[in-house]
């Protein structure tokens, strides 16, 4: 026997743990998704319970599906494939377990805090600061374990899948840390250090790249490993994978501003985001082609093997959504699609199709190997595939129709030159049949998930009493390695044209990781520095003043209830927007908005110019029961705002933190609670004078009314601040 051979075993126990977590959280996340889909079709499905209302559950759904389901799926595949690609057991079993239990703890914290209304109000980054710190710690544990495994590997070159894992680990860490920088204002309350335009930029730099580096690159890594495994043939083109990887890493990071077309974001940033998004089409389809052509000569297997069926449709869904993404980033298309369900359909083509089906295919392939038995039922897996596929088709078709319908209705004019559907509710009622169809599609997909779980449990039940853990033998890598002369072309041109530079990077993980980090950081700085440094990006408006203490407290109620999930605060400079909502939004209006609340979907109308549109009592009645005001409204009722007592003393802390962030609070620095009470009394008196209830002066509703009545007032009435208690 070769004396240099070392013996080791792969750690599959940790892979089994992540596999079960993937299923359990997927089931929960998708069930919550179905519940909120039903709430949009009929708000009675929130059962009048605060923690079941749409605004609080929507972030729970997105977080559960992205970070719990897709996250655990990534870890399942990464722990299985990395060990085998590197010919090494994970660096540390303790770190593996800490990673697993730490990640599940984060998910439990999210599942508790989000329904209770603790949120940073940033999409996919809603979790409050203590959980953010926990995420950073657990991510570092994962990184140490992963890179430690690379360090003790017995395979000289890193395979493509590992490049994608490296890019994901490095970039997610950077995105998470910089987007979540905030100042705590309580144990579960914080304010973003960025405001308005800059906060929006940072959020969508993060938000778009969360899709890129949490839902795309990790799953591309899984595709590059598990698709060849399942097809039992190598990837179509290793060369194409090099081009695919580097163009994805270079291009994705620039694309975030396409989420903010026609907003108060500077035009140059918006254009840059559009151009890089369109360029992304190229590498994305390179990846899709590489995946699909891996099956060349093996299409017969697709007919027989449900695993390959899942993979084929997953990769096709990836191709469809990465064609649609660049298309949606074109400004003229975006003007129609933005704020509508079209974006929700786009996201679900990716999430249900690409992430979901790839995960199912991977787990059906893994289950017999991990549980060392036969899959309980191939037929059941086939049925799951068709349920999921038809579920996706039904879901996205319905929601594409809803998005197009609503987008076109918003911009429709009649023959007299007036908006054809001036009442927003008209454009909502039209969507109801599509919302029920969407719920049906989601139900089909979820029923497939239940079948998946049953199949997994029955498979697991036939596992052996003890798992066989074969001993692997491989030689350690020598430290004095020198590239063979044949592998080292002479001359710079030869090294370049023979891709020798990349083959060298592939065996130098530190160099490779640094190159990835440089690509991501440099690209980010190219956009971030001008956004923060160019003064003309955010022209100041003299009449824009900080929120009063009561308005600030009301803004936090608005954030707690997740109102921004359904209402935007951003009027685009488009005629049909200004005709409907009023003067378009200016960058200078948001300089005190920590965090920004522009929103990304209009399930209800925009609120940027809501202040002064209706009397205070209208808002009270509307919040107590929206259907008393608008019988066809799908907005949840918030009767608890009329009974919950406002914590006046806690307002001082909020004002102090805002002042730390540079918001110029004058008298309010020493006197916030008293100022808030004075303004609350005056609003309460106005409500009583209009014939409303007389017991609201110390309730949350007056703070919310104060905030809503302030929206858009600073620019429409220069010099006018708020009526009472202004700073």
């Amino acid at each position: 026997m070769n004396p240099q051979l070392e013996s080791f075993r792969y750690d599959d126990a940790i892979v089994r743990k992540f596999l079960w977590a993937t299923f359990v959280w997927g089931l929960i996340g998708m069930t919550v998704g179905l519940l909120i889909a039903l709430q949009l079709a009929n708000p009675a499905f929130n059962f009048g319970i605060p923690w079941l209302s749409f605004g609080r559950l929507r972030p729970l759904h997105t977080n559960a599906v992205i970070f719990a389901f897709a996250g655990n799926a990534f870890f399942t595949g990464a722990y299985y494939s990395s060990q085998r690609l590197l010919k090494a057991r994970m660096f540390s079993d303790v770190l593996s377990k800490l990673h697993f239990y730490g990640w599940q703890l984060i998910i439990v914290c999210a599942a508790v805090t989000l329904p209770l209304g603790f949120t940073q109000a940033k999409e996919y980054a809603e979790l409050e600061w203590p959980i953010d710190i926990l995420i950073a710690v657990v991510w570092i544990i994962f990184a140490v374990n992963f890179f430690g495994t690379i360090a003790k590997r017995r395979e000289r070159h890193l395979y493509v899948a590992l490049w994608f894992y490296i890019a994901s680990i490095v970039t997610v860490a950077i995105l998470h840390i910089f987007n979540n920088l905030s100042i705590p204002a309580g144990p579960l309350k914080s304010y973003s250090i960025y405001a308005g335009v800059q906060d929006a930029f940072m959020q969508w730099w993060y938000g778009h790249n969360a899709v890129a580096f949490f839902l795309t690159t990790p799953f591309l890594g899984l595709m590059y490993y598990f698709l060849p495994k399942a097809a039992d043939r190598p990837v179509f083109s290793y060369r194409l994978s090099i081009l695919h990887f580097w163009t994805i890493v270079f291009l994705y990071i620039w694309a975030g501003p396409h989420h903010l077309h026609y907003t108060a974001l500077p035009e140059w940033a918006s254009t840059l985001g559009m151009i890089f998004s369109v360029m992304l089409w190229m590498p994305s389809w390179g990846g899709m082609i590489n995946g699909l052509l891996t099956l060349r000569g093996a299409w017969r297997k697709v007919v027989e093997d449900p695993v390959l069926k899942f993979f084929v449709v997953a990769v096709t869904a990836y191709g469809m959504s990465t064609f649609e993404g660049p298309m949606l980033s074109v400004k003229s298309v975006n003007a129609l699609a933005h704020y509508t369900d079209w974006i929700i359909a786009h996201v679900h083509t990716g999430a249900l199709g690409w992430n979901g089906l790839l995960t199912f295919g991977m787990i059906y392939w893994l289950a017999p190997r991990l549980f060392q038995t036969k899959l309980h039922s191939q037929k059941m897996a086939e049925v799951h595939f068709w349920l999921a596929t038809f579920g996706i088709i039904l879901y996205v078709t319905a929601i594409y129709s809803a998005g197009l319908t609503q987008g076109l209705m918003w911009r429709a004019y009649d023959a007299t030159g007036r908006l054809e559907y001036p009442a927003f509710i008209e454009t909502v009622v039209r969507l109801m049949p599509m919302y029920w169809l969407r719920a049906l599609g989601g139900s089909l997909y979820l029923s497939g998930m239940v079948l998946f779980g049953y199949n997994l449990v029955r498979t697991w039940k036939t596992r052996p009493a003890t798992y066989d853990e074969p001993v692997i033998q491989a030689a350690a890598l020598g430290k004095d390695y020198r590239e063979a002369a044949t592998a080292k072309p002479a001359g710079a041109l030869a090294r370049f044209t023979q891709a020798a530079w990349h083959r060298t990077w592939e065996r130098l993980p530190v160099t490779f990781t640094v190159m990835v980090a440089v690509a991501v950081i440099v690209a980010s700085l190219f956009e971030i520095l001008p956004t923060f440094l160019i003064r003309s990006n955010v022209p100041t408006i003299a009449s824009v003043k900080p929120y009063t203490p009561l308005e600030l407290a009301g803004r936090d109620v608005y954030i707690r209830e997740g109102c921004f999930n359904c209402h935007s605060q951003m009027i685009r400079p488009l005629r049909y927007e200004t005709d409907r909502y009023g003067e378009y939004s200016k960058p200078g209006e948001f300089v005190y908005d920590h965090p920004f609340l522009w929103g990304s979907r209009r399930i209800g109308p925009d609120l940027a110019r809501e202040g002064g549109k209706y009397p205070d009592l209208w808002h009270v009645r509307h919040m107590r029961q929206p259907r008393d005001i608008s019988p066809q409204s799908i907005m949840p009722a918030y009767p608890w705002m009329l009974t919950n007592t406002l914590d006046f003393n806690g307002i001082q802390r909020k004002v102090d933190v805002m002042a730390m962030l540079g918001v110029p609070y004058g008298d309010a620095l020493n006197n916030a609670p008293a100022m808030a009470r004075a303004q609350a009394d005056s609003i309460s008196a106005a409500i009583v004078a209009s014939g409303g209830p007389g017991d609201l002066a110390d309730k949350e509703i007056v703070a919310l009314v104060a905030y809503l009545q302030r929206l858009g007032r600073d620019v429409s009435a220069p010099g006018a601040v708020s009526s009472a208690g202004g700073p």
Partner: protein
Amino acid sequence: MRLSEIMSHAGLSGYAEVALVLFLIAFLLIAVSVFAPSRKREFDAASRMPLDDVHPQFPRPTSGDAS
């Protein structure tokens, strides 16, 4: 002069177009480098890495030399 003043006066109207051209050049360079006809055997071996859970591709154990 402060960095913010330099950036403010730099004029970024053509920023996106310049970036587009630079990245297209970089893309073409990588494409030429990667797809030039060479090293077929080495790339074929690299693409087989996921198919063998036991034996490393680089170096292959038959060489008897780990380095």
